[in-house]
């Protein structure tokens, strides 16, 4: 079943076209890689889908419903969640309280029920000592907290914006396995932006490639990585 679909999605900032006419869809249970060189518009694309910015043109549908102009907090409530490339833990809240925010606002649970659900999520992700201040967490723990915070929305569509950045290879492996397990168990559609191609190869079922805001290729990682246009985009026109 198709969870999310964009049609001719476009975002212009003054003269710059950050996302240009992108049409794509995501199925439930699918892990989709979103790749492209720096500045290709990957984060802008996620910002459009999560409602942080509004598009210049085009349409976004979630489970058949038009959500193009829906405010971000409402998208969080109907089941779209994301993490951020630059992580902002809520500094005056503890680890567990950070995760609770999604439970109590996106889902509307009571404080007690929200805390219980947040605790379960933290346990699933292997987070312990939940009353800690967020400044005391390791990088891996911060990344897990960020994922737990998104999962607290109890989403059906989840976007992970460079969650593996800054992790060593063991930590990356652990997190890949975790994301796969969660996606399978909760039957999520997951969109993953990542620069490390090894992560994309291992984690994703399908890949879309953005360059200068345009969708230039789509398919399995093995096919896409052999596509001459993709190779050129990554190496740059001159070098190829």
């Amino acid at each position, binding site marked *: 079943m198709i969870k999310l679909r964009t049609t001719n999605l476009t975002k212009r900032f003054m003269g710059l076209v950050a996302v240009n006419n992108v049409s794509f869809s995501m199925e439930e249970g699918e892990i989709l890689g979103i790749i492209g060189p720096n500045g290709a518009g990957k984060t802008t694309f996620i910002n459009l889908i999560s409602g*942080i910015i509004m598009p210049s043109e085009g349409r976004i549908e979630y489970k058949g419903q038009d959500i193009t102009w829906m405010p*971000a*907090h409402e998208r969080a409530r109907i089941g779209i969640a994301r993490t*951020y490339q630059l992580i*902002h833990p809520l500094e*005056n809240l503890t680890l567990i309280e950070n995760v609770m925010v999604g439970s109590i*606002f996106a889902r509307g649970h009571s*404080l007690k029920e929200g805390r219980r659900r947040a605790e379960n999520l933290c346990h699933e992700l292997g987070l312990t000592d939940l009353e800690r201040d967020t400044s005391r967490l390791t990088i891996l723990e911060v990344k897990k907290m960020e994922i737990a915070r998104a999962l607290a929305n109890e989403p059906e569509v989840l976007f992970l914006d460079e969650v593996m950045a800054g992790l060593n290879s063991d930590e990356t492996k652990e997190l890949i396995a975790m994301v796969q397990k969660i996606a399978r168990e909760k039957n999520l559609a997951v969109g993953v932006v990542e620069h490390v191609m090894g992560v994309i190869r291992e984690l994703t079922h399908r890949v879309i490639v953005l360059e200068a805001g345009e969708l230039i290729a789509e398919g399995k990682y093995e096919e896409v990585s052999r596509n001459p246009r993709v190779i050129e985009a990554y190496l740059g026109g001159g070098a190829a």
Partner: protein
Amino acid sequence: MNRTLVRILLILIAVAAVALPAFAGDYPLQVARNIMLYMALAISWDMLLRSGQISFGIAGLFGIGAYAAILGVVRAGMPTWLSIPFAAVFAALVAFLIGFVILRLRAMYFSIVTLALGEIFRIIVHNLHDFTGGPEGVVMQQGVMFGGNASKLYWLVLAGLLVAIAASYWFEKSRIHFALTAIRNNEISAKSSGVDIFRWLLLAFVVTSAIQGMLGGIFVMSYGFAAPDVVFSADFTLLPLAMALLGGVYSTRGPIFGAILLGLVAEWLKLKIPYGHLVVYGIMIIIVILFMPQGLKNLLKPAAKRAEGRSA
């Protein structure tokens, strides 16, 4: 300190606060009333600050409440007891209407606009001569509430303070705490967790304005008089702000602590060096902000926790 000890101490303080008129003379009662009034304003200012919005509009909403109360009594024949909740509701309504516009602003733009609005209210009251009495103000012909009984007026302000403390605890213990803290930290990630930012800011602004309006009503009912330069005085903005900063922000006990300290010091300095007291308090505030940015409330925490706070 353990919890039981703190509870016993709090109960003792509460009993002493309620029973104060039984053993204190008029002067200490007057000082206590003043301190409690500013304390309640400081708490209400801090409540909105928890969302990251710095309001300089306390005096504006205090003044609106003051005029709503006194004009309700003088022009509409409202009973004095009713004028105080009326002041709260009126200030809340004004806050609700202007909130739609100004809560879209952030940081210093929000602060400056709240400051300007307070001034606009003052000028309006100043110029609506026939209705508000203009710059000379309005006097309640029937006299002060409770016939000027010092004990009853003291309890009236105490009741106002308790309302502010109760509201502040509600903000701390409910989901409002999570909403406001998330907004203060990062609005974008708050949105992504389903927080309707505008709605929570509006709630906080309306509730804190209602408290400020109510206190304006209490103030004017206990003096039987309102004039623009009195009830819109910058003191009602600056002193609560200084008290909250001194005691420590983002909590209920910070402003309480700061108000007691600054209130008593100010009173004592007023006697020692009239007019010079403002300089001393300015210096006190600067020292605290420079060396204890979390405020004096941090001194009450156990030493270990303090060290943790510093390294964080």
